[in-house]
């Protein structure tokens, strides 16, 4: 992937497929709807099974997906560590404090539906900052549980470029929480390995 004068290596984690290879305008529109217009989408990956269902004509379920974007404003410029720090501060501003309790569903239940809430900070280095967020997507009723979505937002400085990695999963049980933590950590390491300084 060429970003200005820099070439960045990007790869989707195992089990996920880069939708860019399909050239599908519907998937491109979906990706655009999931991020701000001020970002350039570098990769939008969905689970292999979801992509297969989509290509066979079934409705897209999108239980898990991931995306890499870069701010259009910084796309062509070389980002220094201090600029990256400012970018991180700007991006994470207003997220609030992470809860002390690890009972995330209960915490999300206390927040309004649809509000993205900071759940934990996963990593903070000079070139990587990663946070876990969550939102209640649908209120449960008397007989049904609420539905939740977990996501990680990772800001990454590689080869002088500021990237934002997002991983999303629907939350049904703690296994989803483990999955998103592990997948994010491995993906970040893989991207760092693909893009040595």
């Amino acid at each position: 992937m060429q970003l200005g004068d820099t070439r960045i290596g990007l790869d989707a984690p195992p089990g996920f497929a880069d939708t860019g290879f399909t050239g599908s305008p519907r998937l491109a529109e979906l990706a655009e709807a999931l991020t701000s217009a001020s970002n350039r989408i570098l990769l939008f990956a969905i689970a292999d099974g979801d992509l297969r269902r989509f290509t066979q004509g079934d409705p897209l379920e999108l239980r898990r997906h991931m995306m890499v974007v870069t701010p259009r404003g910084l796309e062509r410029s070389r980002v220094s560590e201090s600029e990256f720090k400012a970018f991180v501060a700007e991006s994470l501003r207003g997220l609030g404090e992470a809860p002390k309790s690890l009972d995330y569903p209960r915490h999300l239940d206390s927040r309004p539906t649809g509000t993205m809430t900071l759940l934990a900070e996963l990593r903070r280095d000079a070139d990587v900052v990663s946070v876990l967020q969550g939102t209640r997507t649908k209120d449960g009723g008397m007989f049904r549980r609420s539905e939740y979505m977990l996501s990680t937002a990772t800001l990454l400085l590689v080869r002088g470029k500021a990237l934002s990695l997002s991983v999303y999963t629907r939350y049904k049980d703690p296994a989803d929480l483990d999955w998103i933590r592990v997948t994010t950590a491995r993906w970040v390491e893989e991207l760092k390995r693909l893009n040595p300084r």
Partner: protein
Amino acid sequence: MNRVVRGMIADVVAWYCMPALFLLACVSRSFLPAEAVVPHLRVVLVPLLGLVLFRLVVPARLAAALAASALLALMAAYYALALIGLQSWGRVVSWDLIRSYGAQAPMLPDALDISLPLAVAAAALAWFALLGAAWAYLRVFDWTALLRRSARPPMFALAAGAVGAVGAIELYAFLAAPPTQKSEPLSLTLRPEEGAWDFQQHVIGRLKAAQLDAAEDEARRAYRPAASAERRNVFLIVVDALRPDHMGIYGYARDTTPNLARLEKAGMLRKAGMRASCSSSFCGLLSIAASRSLHEFSVRPITLHEALRRHGYRTHMILSGDHTAFYGLRKAYGELDEYFDARVAGAARYMNDDRIVLERLAAYPRWDGQPVMIQFHLMAAHPLGSREGTAPKYAPAANYAMRRDAAPAGGAAERAVNFYDNGVLHADAVIRGILGTLEAKGYLGNALVAITADHGEALGEHGFYQHTNSVREEMLRIPFVLLSYGTRAAGALDGATLASQVDIAPTILAELGMPRPATWKGAPLHSPVARDFLHFQERWEMGLFDLRDPRNVWKYWINVKTDEEYAFNLTLDPAESRNAIGAAAPRQKRDWRRQVLARGPLDARRRMGDPDEP
């Protein structure tokens, strides 16, 4: 008590009038098998029992009349839709299609050339007539009031409970095991996929399908993409119901294809005439995609799209019309990188308006260098298609969508032809729009564009209008046009005595230097095609083109329901004006029959008492 029994009998007789007429029409015209009758009569019992229960519980006659008229109106509307479906495309209308067209009800009268206020007024009038009839009927025959007066309360409650229980049991039986195997129409409406391969005689036994699919999988494994293939972009434009003899570039007196004529003048266009495998969309589209006639269909055939994907192509479809709701057509297309039809587009436009295609294509990004195959489907020439955006040139014109099997009278044929030609003109304009957009976005630098049809269209010839109702030449003849961009067009498409729809995919692959999958039945049209027979079928009519003597091409078919046979020497009588079956030698007839039986769909073989078929 006698009056109660008489009333009950009257209820049953009155209630079953409409279903009986419907079933009579369906079975007598072979739309449905006789085994569908009893299951359908059982289904219809459920609303009758519901209505009786309602009348037992609610004594007001007006309420009973309202409920009865509402149910009868629903029943009439459903039967009308079911008959339209069976007559138009050989299948009971599906719930998906009802919803799809229902959502577009305000736009439909316009497409059919019917006045919306008039249609609403007629529907309202019909309902009031039903209401009046129900009221009058209940005044004379209502037995529930009598029962209410004469029976003791426990007995009355017991009767009401029994009616409710029988109704509930029947409803449960229907929902738990819908009689789709017996072709009961309502069950097929709710579960169209269970009957999809049975209607239109797309009959493939499970065993046969398994054998065919095993062969497909073997061919799939053996298929090796060609490293030297020329990866030009491919665009396949299928114009629904387009017949070549109404296109200016095929010598029609009217200039209905000015855009294509310009391209022909520029030396970019090659063309061939060919025959479709049938006169309906489902099998026509699959014959194009999978290079086979319908008696050779399997569940997972290798398609043109799949072969191109194996060569690194992205495969996209942008289709006018709702193919998702059309009995699983979307599923039959197989794996695609992008699929867009009127269902995906939403209700912003009438579903058969080709502007859906143009608008979607306009939103495409510039070509990024990866080879792409896009299939388009246009409805411009179809009687249900919209022609918005192109001024009608030929008048007087009238939509013939409501006309099917009627001899042209009082200038009807002329109006239908004018209407159809305006549609062809519109299709040409839409094609110009598609090519213009593709060119502007950089897709046509080095590309191949194929234009064809799923089937032809009858415009009053032989007493037919539209398609799916016969195998006459006007319904089977389709065009095949190849446009070459970026590379000089080479090689005439004249290899076959009679080209077939199944040759389209092999010809496209040959143009690109790609091998053809082993299970494909067609052949590239650039070189001589060795073929003795070409098979076709539509509903009960199945037959062949006999190509053994290229100077005397014969067309033979048999209606397996009526046993009527037809034979025409197409070389001498291309318009099929005189049935020459009587003049054919008995040996010749036997030979044709044997060929049809040997290759024809299993269902027809069974009906004709083929000893090989259980």
